[in-house]
């Protein structure tokens, strides 16, 4: 029981103290700084390993859908196919197998198969999904900005003034006021949020280091 419950909490405590202590020392204090920088490099690698955890889950659940011929199983085939092809040409490139120069372009500018997938499948899909925001921001504004009460009215007026201040037809009237709104009142509100949230985050850190907050480990036994 000690191992299962206390060991993880002890490791959290130790791993948490390393960067905190290192933070207050100069670079010359190598005995303190070195473990922190090792841990930093190591955590990047751990995160790299974690991706496969996700891949395993995706393969398992989609294979199940295909085997059971669930509704929409065809899309599970598309998903796994896309992943297998892109992942395979990526792995071949990463290890320079089959004459591939890597995962970018050939010296003459032609794309490797992985770069082709990145340029013509991944990037346009990403950019398109991102661009849908232009539509959603309009529909959200339409629905949310109503003169319901004081707070909602302030929200509405500030948004409309800034929108007018950013286009040629309204710039002359609202341009300067827009900059003022963004810098002074908006700056003050943001600063209040940041100070409060930073203290909240620090308090959470302390709870985790002390082993009080542990739901992220599934050790939520209470006191």
């Amino acid at each position, binding site marked *: 029981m000690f191992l299962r419950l206390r060991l993880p909490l002890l490791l959290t405590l130790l791993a948490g103290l390393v960067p905190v202590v290192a933070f207050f020392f*100069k670079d010359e204090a190598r005995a303190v700084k070195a473990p922190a920088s090792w841990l930093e490099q190591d955590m990047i690698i751990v995160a790299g390993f974690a991706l496969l955890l996700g891949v395993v889950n*995706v393969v398992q659940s989609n294979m199940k859908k295909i085997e059971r011929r669930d509704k929409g199983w065809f899309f599970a085939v598309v998903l796994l196919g896309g992943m297998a092809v892109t992942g395979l040409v990526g792995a071949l490139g990463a290890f320079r197998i089959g004459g591939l120069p890597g995962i970018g372009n050939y010296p003459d500018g032609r794309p490797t198969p992985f770069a082709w997938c990145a340029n013509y499948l991944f990037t346009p899909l990403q950019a398109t999904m991102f661009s849908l925001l232009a539509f959603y921001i309009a529909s959200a504004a339409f629905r949310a900005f109503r003169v319901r009460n004081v707070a909602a009215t302030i929200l509405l007026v500030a948004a409309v003034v800034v929108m007018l201040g950013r286009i040629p037809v309204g710039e002359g009237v609202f341009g300067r006021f827009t900059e003022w709104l963004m810098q002074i009142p908006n700056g003050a509100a943001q600063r209040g*949020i940041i100070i*409060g949230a930073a*203290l909240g*985050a620090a308090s959470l850190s302390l709870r985790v280091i002390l082993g009080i907050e542990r739901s992220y480990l*599934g050790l939520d036994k209470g*006191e």
Partner: protein
Amino acid sequence: MAYFDISRVNALTLFIFFCIVVILFIEKARADRNLYIRRIAGLNAIDEAVGRATELGKKVLYIPGIMSIDENQTIASLAVLAHVARMTARYATDLDVPNKDPLTFASARETVKEAYTLEGRPDLYQESMVHYVTYDQFAFTAAVSGIMVRERPAANFLIGSFYAESLLLAETGQASGAIQIAGTAEVAQLPFFVCACDYTLIGEELYAAGAYLSRQPAMLGSIKGQDWTKAAVGAAIILGVLLESLHLFPGFKAFFSIQ
């Protein structure tokens, strides 16, 4: 102490002050179990949202942000997830937790599994409740949007660290008719959650949420401690403004500046 970084003496002072105050209040809370913490509107709505999903026989969708567990907002979100999962276990409501980050995925699984065990319903827990989607922000958004329109969850929780996908998810969820409770400390995304969700936990409220919901004395004590540190910071700001306005003792403001 030649190795001590003297330029960080101000940070060290704040750090020590903060730790002492928080730990003192944690100890105090363990002795006196009646600490006052005011209501936080978004948190009281959680029960209502899960209740509605139960009534309608639909699922609860919980998105723990898109960042990894190296981000404190994610850890704060998992603490809220622990509470939500206990409720869905109690009412035997379906829960769905899609993930963008693989480590968050691994953590969220532990969290949900434990919540179902604690509620005495490990039989209801299924591995498929917490699942992985993809590492790309917008591919994840597309997939979750698909879940929202096809499976029409009755309650959407968007709690954690969000970026540009905040409004894409919140608008899609809104159009699908779900009750939406959001929470983030990403200042740039707060306007969108405030506009498109029913309740929004703003900044510090997100970090306090897990502690507030757990009702454990030590947790509440840490909120008290952070609260009084905040009061001290506020008092220091007021003092600093007075000194600056009277052009006295510029060293006070300089002490708070870094570098």
